[in-house]
């Protein structure tokens, strides 16, 4: 076998320039493909991470039908023991309790519809870093009886720290919820809609205002490795007897994909575009490799004839020519991957900062305007498989060519 490998390897270098050009085309394609995939994947990861950290978490347990009706009537009672069981699942990083509803907030003559979020201040801060967003006043404690307003909302209401605002809404089972609450803090959010309509109180206080003791509308769950999402999702479902498509009258358990369908869709569209681009790139590469293999085959007809004449079986020639194709391809793919690796590591650690309109658009979504990169072994493996497939398909040409060779005719050249 070693001799055939040696023969194939040396055959490559009969025409160094041609081999180098063919390998270089693979080399640059691999670098380009890896950079593209790294940038896309990094961006998706970043969008998902930002999105789940902004609010939803990776998984949410909600009261049955709350997602559709958004009413306190669909809130749930979630026992501490159950929450503890969720937290004990391997890979669960954090759980965050919320009680959310819509109410009117008034100050002076100004009234607004606001999303009131009852939170466990410590848990919420771990998920959304809410404390860091406070620009005036102080953050909530579990026993606080004050409110944090989003900066834009505070401006609309023209309130400052210490002013008391009136909350007026509907509590559980139609009970009127009304409370005069002092503004304890003002927080700045990057997402404009959030910055104009969110207000936070501590969860016990919210349960008291809305006459919904022990009630929650959601338990957000963060996991430490997004790749484990499906496993953990299933595990939580089974905890609530929801596995295997079973229905449960009390709870819905949803992943971020169901909570943010528009994000999923935009990633799918972008990913499809990326895959089409990669496809075009690899078609070009395939033609490059194929052209080289065709030339290498055509110029050695006589030699193939001689080798068959002196007793080399055709399948051994198939082996040699296939090895040649593999070598050309893998020189490119391996060097490309090797050169890409430090490049990608650099970009993973130093995301490209965005400026101008693109940055503004990303800011409007509430994300930091950067172009992050990601590295997964799967990206490199995918390149190797793709180039291997191209090499194998290209390698069929010399096999078919040799299959038809008649030694006497081939030796005539």
């Amino acid at each position, binding site marked *: 076998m070693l*001799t055939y490998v040696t*023969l194939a390897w*040396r*055959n490559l*270098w*009969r025409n160094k320039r041609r081999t180098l050009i063919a390998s270089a085309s693979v080399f640059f394609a691999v670098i380009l493909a890896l950079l593209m995939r790294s940038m896309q994947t990094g961006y998706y990861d970043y969008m998902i991470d930002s999105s789940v950290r902004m609010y939803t978490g990776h998984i949410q347990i909600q009261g049955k039908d709350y997602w559709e009706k958004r009413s306190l009537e669909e809130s749930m009672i979630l026992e501490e023991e159950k929450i503890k069981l969720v937290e004990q699942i391997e890979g669960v990083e954090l759980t965050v309790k919320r009680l959310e509803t819509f109410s009117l907030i008034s100050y002076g003559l100004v009234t607004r519809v606001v999303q009131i979020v009852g939170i466990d201040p410590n848990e919420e801060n771990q998920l959304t870093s809410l404390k860091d967003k406070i620009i005036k006043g102080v953050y909530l404690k579990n026993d606080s009886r004050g409110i944090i307003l989003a900066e834009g909302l505070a401006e609309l209401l023209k309130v400052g720290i210490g002013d008391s605002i009136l909350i007026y809404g509907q509590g559980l089972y139609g009970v009127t919820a009304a409370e005069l609450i002092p503004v304890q803090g003002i927080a700045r959010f990057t997402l404009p809609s959030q910055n104009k309509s969110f207000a936070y109180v501590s969860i016990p206080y919210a349960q008291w205002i809305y006459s919904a003791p022990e009630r929650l509308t959601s338990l957000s769950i963060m996991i430490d490795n997004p790749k484990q999402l499906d496993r953990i999702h299933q595990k939580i479902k089974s905890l609530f007897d929801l596995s295997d498509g079973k229905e449960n009258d009390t709870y819905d358990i949803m992943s971020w994909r169901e909570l943010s369908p528009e994000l999923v869709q935009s990633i799918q569209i972008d990913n499809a575009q990326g895959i089409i681009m990669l496809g075009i790139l690899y078609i070009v590469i395939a033609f490059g490799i194929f052209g080289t293999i065709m030339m290498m085959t055509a110029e050695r007809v*006589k*030699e193939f004839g*001689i*080798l*068959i*004449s*002196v*007793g*080399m*079986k*055709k399948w*051994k020639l198939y082996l040699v020519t296939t090895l040649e194709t593999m070598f050309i391809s893998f020189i490119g793919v391996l060097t490309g991957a090797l050169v890409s690796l430090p490049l990608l590591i650099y970009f993973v650690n130093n995301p490209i900062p965005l400026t101008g309109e693109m940055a503004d658009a990303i800011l409007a979504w509430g994300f930091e305007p950067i172009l992050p990169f990601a590295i997964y072994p799967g990206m490199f493996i995918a390149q190797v498989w793709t180039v291997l497939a191209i090499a194998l398909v290209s390698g069929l040409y010399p096999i078919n060519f040799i299959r038809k060779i008649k*030694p*006497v005719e081939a*030796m005539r050249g």
Partner: protein
Amino acid sequence: MSLIQINKVTKIYDGTAVPVKALNNVDLKIEAGEFTAIVGPSGSGKTTLLNIVGGLDIPTSGNVIIDNVDISTYKPDELVNFRLHHIGFVFQAYNLIPVFTAKENVEFIMLLQGLVKAEREKRATELLNAVGLGDRVNNKPSELSGGQQQRIAVARALASKPSFVLADEPTANLDSATADSLLDLMENLNKEFNMTFVFSTHDQRVISRAHRIITLHDGAVERDELIKQNQ
């Protein structure tokens, strides 16, 4: 029983508009140890006869028996195997593997036969010494003269321990001195090891050394002369 028996072999090429009869009812026997030249003008059928004897082509009718085996009935794969183990080839244009050294070229045939490395190396070295290229084992064909390359081709032809060697115009690309030297080598191999050589040639230098001269004309044997008895 003769080493090579050619029985009423006819070869017609009918791929062209007018079918060409390259060989016409050729009957020949070649004994072990012969040093035979097949001569004749261009188109007389020398190369076709050599190809059929070498199992590279199949006759339209008739058969070829080598070492008591009728190779005319063999399938292409069986012929490849037969050639590998029974026939050595020397071609006009040397046809060595350009990326292999002299030694690797000689070893390659033995590798195809499945010999172990130590045995291959030993025999390749012996053969290269025998053809006077013991000091050129690591040179590639492009680093050697035409004569040296043809010597390697002879060593390669002998590497498989064949029953006989077929040489198609082996001296056509060589100058006189080199051709003489190569013929000396082949004559010695014939004498010392009783190796059978069958040449197709136009070259008077080869013809003058042949022990038997078979003249073809229009695909048929015109003359068959025994010049010198085998030793």
